[in-house]
């Protein structure tokens, strides 16, 4: 028995949406998998896994981190660096984050050596492809800091994971 046309149109419309969504997920599977990096459940891991020392990145692209990796490194003593403008930093930032807006880093490179050289630096900005964190990370690497990483998800991913934030200026 044939379907009446309106029902067939609805089912074909849903098939069109499913096809488009499947193409999009296939094309962007890496981005989706990175954003689905979930923490281990308590039943699987009662103690946090040790943070293995990683070689210094040779490029900013190799230094990107997922949210869980950021949390592990922060627990091990890494310093978060906020590359956003100070007014945005004051509205909310990662706990104990150091404010170093990219514009100021470009204008006053002499501030860069004031960062601790014996801690891993995790640079972040507004997420969603914001390039300020990667640009600031490059400046830091060029200034001689070896352990520099970029948190690509940035402040939005941190907040959406319901993780604690601080407000105010340093």
């Amino acid at each position, binding site marked *: 028995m044939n379907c009446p*046309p309106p029902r067939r*149109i609805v089912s074909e419309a849903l098939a069109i949406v499913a096809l488009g969504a499947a193409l999009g997920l296939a094309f962007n599977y890496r981005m989706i998998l990175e954003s689905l990096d979930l923490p281990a459940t308590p039943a699987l891991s009662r103690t946090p896994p040790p943070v293995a020392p990683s070689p210094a990145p040779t490029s900013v692209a190799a230094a990107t981190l997922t949210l869980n990796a950021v949390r592990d490194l922060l627990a091990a003593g890494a310093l978060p660096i906020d590359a956003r403008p100070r007014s945005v930093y004051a509205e909310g930032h990662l706990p104990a984050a150091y404010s170093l807006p990219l514009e100021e880093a470009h204008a006053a490179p002499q501030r860069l050596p004031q960062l601790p050289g014996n801690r891993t630096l995790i640079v972040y900005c507004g997420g969603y492809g914001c390039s300020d964190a990667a640009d600031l990370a490059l400046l830091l690497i060029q200034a001689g800091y070896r352990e520099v990483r970029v948190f690509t998800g940035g402040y939005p991913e941190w907040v959406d994971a319901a993780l604690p934030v601080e407000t105010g200026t340093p």
Partner: protein
Amino acid sequence: MNRRSETVLFLCRLLVGGCFLYAGAAKAFDPRAFAGEIAAYRLFPHLFNLLIAATLPWIEIVTGALVLGGRKLLPAAWVLVVLEALFAVILLSAIVRGLNIDCGCLGAGGGRSLPEALLGDLVLLGLTVTLCRLQPLPRDDD
């Protein structure tokens, strides 16, 4: 269908299909930036912004191509009517909440304000509804 209706239908297909094919292609290759544009509306959590950014442009490309090519015209046009109606509601919500953001319709840096985008969306909705009304329903044996 008379000649005038056929001409109007053809023009609607060109405009609507071409618009969505172009808009989808403009956003499909930089999903993170498009996710940032979606995040500016402050409606969805981080993961949803990324999922929408990953899939919506490709839905636009597929439906735009079908409308432009005149294949599965009615189902594709219905998808577009739903997308346009939803987008109009989202734009109106953003305007009411006083958000001063780019619409993100053509990807990051598209440069269209929310009222402009709402007007454009309503025009497009009108054209798509016209297209749906002019296109005859498929027969059971099609």
